[in-house]
């Protein structure tokens, strides 16, 4: 059967707004913030034009956006919101409550630097600060992936083995505002793929009323949190199952990561989201010169597929992990420290170094990526890294 798709030119935000339109959730509660705003605007016009029948709540803050989304989801609605940066920081308290309630909320997060200094451009400091909130995190390289990930996220979140909220992350302005060619699925295909949401317990079940959000003391608290961790573990399998199903309707394959010339690569860059696109360009260039270089672009980092990442990098001699956010631990970015820790049990370990890059929207061009590969080559020759953590392209 030939796959039905429609090629369109859209910004990342427009593509995501269209994914949400095709899902047609029961409730959206949202608050505008750059660079997420377009999603809310597009969706408001879908509602105004009667293209969807979503109940939209234009709340007075992101804290209330997440609170209302939680209230709607607990009431049995398929509920969504979207945010960026300060907005995600403001809803931080409620992120824990969404996951603690085991609510399958899907939230696109358009990555933007967190203040201060105030800055509206891309880095990953917003979502990196939310890694311990019990949300799944899926990163997208471009508008197509953001669109595809939003649709898959709905299924992953609502899977009875998971029942956890999901953030779908993509780069502010670079992906959210740039127009790209992408393929949209037919409305009916998405509708069938996401299906109906019929939760077991809701606030509107008056025959067997449920108390959502009781006080839980030390006698039960640990069990509830352990179950949440179990669900995150179960999500690993579900992510691949849904990806396989999605491939059947779209022809596009997804996993925990994308490898680019990874099989025989000796020098590898690991980087999330749009920068991977730039890195692919450099990998092509260097491969043409006979250099054994490759790229690993993690797609899912919550749950953290440590085993699979280690396996993917097992042939590498030197790895540069590029983090688009500081942790201020002085030991490197979040992705670097987690990936490095994942190698603790591995029989052979590549040399590993970390670059903190692209903060506050600083462009990372092919020139910087080339420089990173040059560093890796010197490290490989030397047999050691000359610097564990480097701020890339920073004036000294």
């Amino acid at each position, binding site marked *: 059967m030939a796959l039905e798709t429609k090629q369109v030119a859209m910004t990342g935000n427009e593509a995501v707004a269209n994914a949400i339109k095709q899902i047609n959730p029961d409730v959206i509660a949202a608050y505008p913030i750059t660079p997420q705003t377009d999603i809310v605007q597009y969706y408001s016009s879908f509602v105004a034009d009667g293209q969807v029948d979503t109940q939209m709540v234009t709340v007075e803050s992101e804290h209330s956006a997440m609170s209302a989304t939680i209230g709607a989801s607990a009431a049995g609605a398929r509920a969504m919101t979207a945010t960026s940066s300060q907005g995600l920081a403001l809803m931080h308290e409620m992120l824990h409550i969404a996951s603690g309630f085991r609510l399958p909320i899907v939230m696109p997060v358009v990555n933007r630097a967190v203040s201060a200094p105030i800055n509206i451009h891309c880095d990953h400091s917003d979502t990196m600060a939310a890694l311990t909130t019990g949300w799944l995190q899926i990163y997208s390289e471009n508008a197509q992936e953001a669109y595809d990930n939003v649709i898959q996220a709905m299924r992953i979140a609502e899977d009875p083995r998971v029942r956890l909220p999901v953030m779908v992350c993509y780069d502010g302005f670079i992906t959210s505002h740039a127009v790209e060619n992408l393929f949209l699925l037919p409305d009916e295909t998405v509708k069938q793929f996401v299906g109906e949401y019929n939760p077991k317990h809701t606030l509107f079940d008056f025959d067997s009323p449920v108390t959502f959000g*009781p006080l839980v003391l030390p006698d039960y608290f640990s069990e509830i949190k352990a179950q949440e961790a179990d669900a995150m573990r179960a999500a690993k399998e579900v992510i691949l199952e849904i990806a396989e199903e999605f491939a059947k309707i779209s022809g596009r394959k997804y996993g925990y990561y994308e490898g680019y010339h990874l099989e025989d690569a000796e020098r590898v860059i690991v980087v999330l989201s749009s920068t991977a696109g730039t890195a692919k360009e450099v990998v092509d260039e260097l491969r043409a010169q006979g250099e054994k270089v490759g790229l690993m672009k993690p797609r899912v980092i919550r749950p953290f597929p440590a085993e699979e990442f280690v396996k993917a990098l097992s042939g590498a001699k030197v790895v540069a992990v590029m983090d688009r956010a500081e942790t201020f631990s002085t030991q490197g970015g979040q992705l670097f420290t987690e990936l490095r820790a994942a190698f603790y049990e591995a029989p052979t370990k590549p040399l590993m170094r970390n670059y903190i890059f692209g903060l506050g929207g600083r462009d990372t061009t092919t020139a910087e990526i080339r420089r990173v590969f040059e560093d890796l080559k010197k490290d490989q020759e030397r047999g050691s890294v000359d610097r564990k953590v480097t701020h890339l392209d920073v004036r000294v």
Partner: protein
Amino acid sequence: MASLKELSALPEVLAPGHRLCAGCGAPIVVRMITRAAKGPLVVANATGCLEVSTTIYPYTSWNTPWIHTAFENAAATASGVEAAYHALKRRGKVDKDINIVVFGGDGGTYDIGFQSLSGAMERNHKLVYVCYDNGAYMNTGIQRSSATPKGANTTTSPVGKVSYGKRENRKDLTEIMAAHNIPYAAQVSPSHWNDLYQKAEKAFAANGAAFINAFAPCPRGWRHDTKDTIEICRLAVDTCFWPLYEVVDGKYRVTYKPREKKPVTEFLKAQGRFSHLFQPGNEEVLEAIQKEVDRKWEELLKLEELSNS
């Protein structure tokens, strides 16, 4: 007008066995308000005494669907519940007509929840927000809030060698809610149960957002005998410290005018939190409190006159 006998026969939403203190005003308010809801009821609760004392897992005192998410967002959470109701009803997944009521203490309503309350009222969600106002953060141990009356001794406005307790007057939240031009706003007191019940009925029947500010003594924080709760409520009303009134579509109506307005000292002296005000040297504070009560009462009477003329 229902009789107490009829009211007591109505279904009980808050089951006995909860762990609120003897003499606490909150459960009285909850049991009276929820009786006025006709049909299915969803309760949203802000973090506070009521929430912690009624839902100690794996037990719950609530015979009806109930949700608590955090402290500052009960109104926002309920906004989402209301939105879900409209969406699911439109899509044929819910067929009943339902009521939504929110309970928050003064900390969760006047202070930390002020923004989300204002947002929910402005958006005019069909829900009834009830503040049980005990005038301090009682759950954490009697800290002052913006609802704490002037002169009250709390653990963060303590009486000391150079302090007579809280220096500021209360925030007038009912007025602020009325200024949102919502269909219904009212002040109630458990001492006047029939007035309270009727206002709750009107709030549930309102075509949009409704706000009720309910006087709710806290024997622990106010330092009075648990048996005196209702008596202290009555004194608050009879001194005009806590006027009973409603604002319906912008029109004020004072629902109870004491035949003889008692001096505010009668309300104050019944509570340990004000006992220091009766020591020599604090006469001016008592005078200032009386003056403010008089000013607000006169203002209210004028608002009633103006809005109905």
